[in-house]
């Protein structure tokens, strides 16, 4: 389980942003977790709630938005979500797909006391 490492990186990023914005305590953190990121939302929440104790985010709430894998077909232009990790175009059967979203974990926003 690597969610503790990930939560640790997240907290460091939060602290950096709070400092830059001269914020005080953090109220809410919104992250986007791509299905292909290999990060399990429930475990991330457990790890975050454990590690936040000794940080500026100790009273914050973590909101996790799960992002499905979004592809665009290079052959026919179809854009849509991938189901069950089957990387094939639903319209034309092509394997020439670009992944538009769903790979990374992104810190979207932080609500903090100014």
């Amino acid at each position, binding site marked *: 389980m690597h969610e503790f490492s990930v939560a640790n*990186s997240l907290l460091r990023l939060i602290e950096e942003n709070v400092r830059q*914005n001269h914020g005080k305590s953090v109220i*809410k953190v919104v992250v986007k977790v791509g299905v292909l990121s290999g990060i399990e939302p429930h475990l991330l929440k457990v790890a975050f709630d454990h590690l936040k104790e000794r940080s500026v985010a100790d009273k914050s709430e973590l909101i996790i938005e799960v992002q499905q894998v979004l592809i665009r077909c290079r052959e026919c232009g179809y854009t849509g979500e991938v189901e069950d990790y089957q990387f094939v175009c639903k319209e034309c059967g092509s394997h020439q797909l670009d*992944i538009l979203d769903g790979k990374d974990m992104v810190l979207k926003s932080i609500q*903090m006391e*100014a």
Partner: protein
Amino acid sequence: MCRECGCSLPQKKHHHGEKNSSISGRKTVEVEVLAKVLDANDKQANSNREHFQEHGILALNLMSSPGAGKTTLLERTIETLKGSIRIGVIEGDLETDRDSQRIRAKDVPAYQITTGQACHLDAFMVHKGIHQLPLEELDIVFIENVGNLVCPASYDVGAHTNVVLLSIPEGEDKPLKYPIMFHSADIVLITKVDLLPYIDFDIEDAKRNIKKVNPKVDIIPLSAKTGEGMDRWIRYLTLKRELVE
């Protein structure tokens, strides 16, 4: 990356930035960040790749479940390439330096990373390993990741090629159960094929399952024990190494 939602679609028109409000009299501010949480790791990984590139080194990241045959494959590969391609190894394990000892017994430089609690290697650990190897004297560096089909897939370590091993005793359904790992592969090695007569493992079914989650991946079935399929693996490595220069 789109500034609105952090996806890789072109930026849409919208307004963003700070929103001010107040909750029960306290002043609060919402700051948009849109940064990849593992960005520091990704940057280090890119820098690792540049290190390898500067020395004309091909770097491969070996990933599999525990015991799928990563170290045995390395031992065989080192023996076969002795005298033609110079190899170095970075070994990742939770505990012990047994694997790096096995590699050093073949007269090849090996650096052991013991990760303790961490179930994967990250780019920073590998960077330390890089500087413990005599890069000027090497053509290929193998990074043997911690045996684990889940966590290592989340971390770019700075290799050129991700190699995922699937051994016959694990069963042909593993690519469907661990799709993220198999999706991250550039090449899948189906290992221990000498065991096919003893185990109900449908190799065509396994290939179909791998291609479902990763249609463009290369697949080589092989046995480090009997040497079957090893010639294709060696040709693959030799060509990949030539292409780095």
